[in-house]
């Protein structure tokens, strides 16, 4: 009887080992094509275009090293900004084409489910993708008024991520997320009267800084990020 259990265990173990194989679709290649420009409309060369099946461990921009197991194809944009990526194909809920340049530019991801969808011509045409330059806002808020003064503040700006979700080749705005507005807020008081921090946002973003001192009516100031490092200093 004991022997039987061992045999069953060995068979289960063998099944587990062999079930770990990943096999992409046989006898097929797809083509991802388009062009990459910056916020001025100028061609962007050397952007990396990577085709993945299944997302990385935590997010679609979790980094190539952790996701290379599911990398189907990769290439770079040419000097005129155009790209063509010959890629393997896989049927999966999370089929993506990710475009990245460097840390100073926004990313772009084309997401779709290929469980039942495959373009008739085997071409994923991303047309023109804009990667905007990212600026870093360094803000420094310090209290110069008397102790006991408090201030609530918030920054409204645009996120640097762009995920376009497609269903059967059509953009689905409800599931897409592209350079969406984002807000950070905080209250400064005697426990922490000053703060120095930063955030990143694409060039051209109009940042709204809203503050309220001692629960007074909020006041909003705006500024446009148009340089790689924008310093914002405020005292209350």
């Amino acid at each position, binding site marked *: 009887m004991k022997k039987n259990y061992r045999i069953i265990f060995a068979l289960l173990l063998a099944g587990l080992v062999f079930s770990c194989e*990943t*096999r992409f679709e046989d006898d097929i290649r797809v*083509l991802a094509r388009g062009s990459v420009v910056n916020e001025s409309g100028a061609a962007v060369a050397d952007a990396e275009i990577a085709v993945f099946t299944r997302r990385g461990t935590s997010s679609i921009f979790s980094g190539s090293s952790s996701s*290379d*197991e599911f990398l*189907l*194809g990769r290439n770079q944009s040419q000097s005129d900004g155009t790209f063509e990526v*010959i890629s*393997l194909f896989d049927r999966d809920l999370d089929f993506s084409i990710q475009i990245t340049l460097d840390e100073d530019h926004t990313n772009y991801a084309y997401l779709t489910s290929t469980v039942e969808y495959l373009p008739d011509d085997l071409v994923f045409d991303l047309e023109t993708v804009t990667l905007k330059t990212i600026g870093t806002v360094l803000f420094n808020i310090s209290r110069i008024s008397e102790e006991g003064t408090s201030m609530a503040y918030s920054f409204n700006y645009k996120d640097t991520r762009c995920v376009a979700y497609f269903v059967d080749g059509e953009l689905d705005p409800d599931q897409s997320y592209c350079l969406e507005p984002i807000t950070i807020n905080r209250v400064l008081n005697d426990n922490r009267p000053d703060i120095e921090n930063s955030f990143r946002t694409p060039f051209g973003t109009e940042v709204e800084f809203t503050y309220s001192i001692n629960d007074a009516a909020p006041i909003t100031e705006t500024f446009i990020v148009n340089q790689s490092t924008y310093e914002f200093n405020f005292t209350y």
Partner: protein
Amino acid sequence: MSSTLPIKRLAFVLACLCGSFVFSQDLTETTIPEPQDAPQAQSARERKVALSFDLYRPSPSGNNFFAESASGSLGFNFDLQLFVYKQFFLGGGIGDSYFDNKDISKTGNYEKTTLSSHDFYVGYEFLPLEDFRLGVAVTIVGNSRYKNNQSNTRKVYQVDHGNLRNYQTYFAYEVDRTLSVFIKYTYRSDRTKIQVPSALNSYFEKTAVHQIGFGLKLYFGEKSVF
């Protein structure tokens, strides 16, 4: 239905035929007739079956995805030939060859390819000189399987298939009546079954590989089948 099945059946039938002919030889017949003139000498060199093994270096060529991405390292073949009528033979071969992928932008993402093939061929063996044999053969039907591994772990992979045609020639030296050593050149041309966007059709529809190698061949029997 897979086209590999008829080939496997043919190979099986060929193997059975060869086995029956080889083992049906009269073991008491040990006297080998001495060649007296050219036809008789040629007749004395007739054989029934040959088994061979060869190693080769594959070199992809042409203007196609395989030539522009794959770097061949090594390959091997097992072959079985049945001499049907004098020097005319039918044969079957199986083998693998191994490639590294130098440029994933041309192919999709994988690092290594194991190219497995089997084919059924027809050929003729010339006897130009004493102790030498020159063979030529062409594939009648053949299949190839490209297993594209993403890494050495072989856990993540993809497979392409193709129809194979080999054009091969070998030059063999008879060490003795049974054993020969040979050099062999094969030009293989695969018509792939890969679906691609129309703009890439010509780039993916065919592959070509030059194979140059050497091997050992064992001859059995003293007469062709007919």
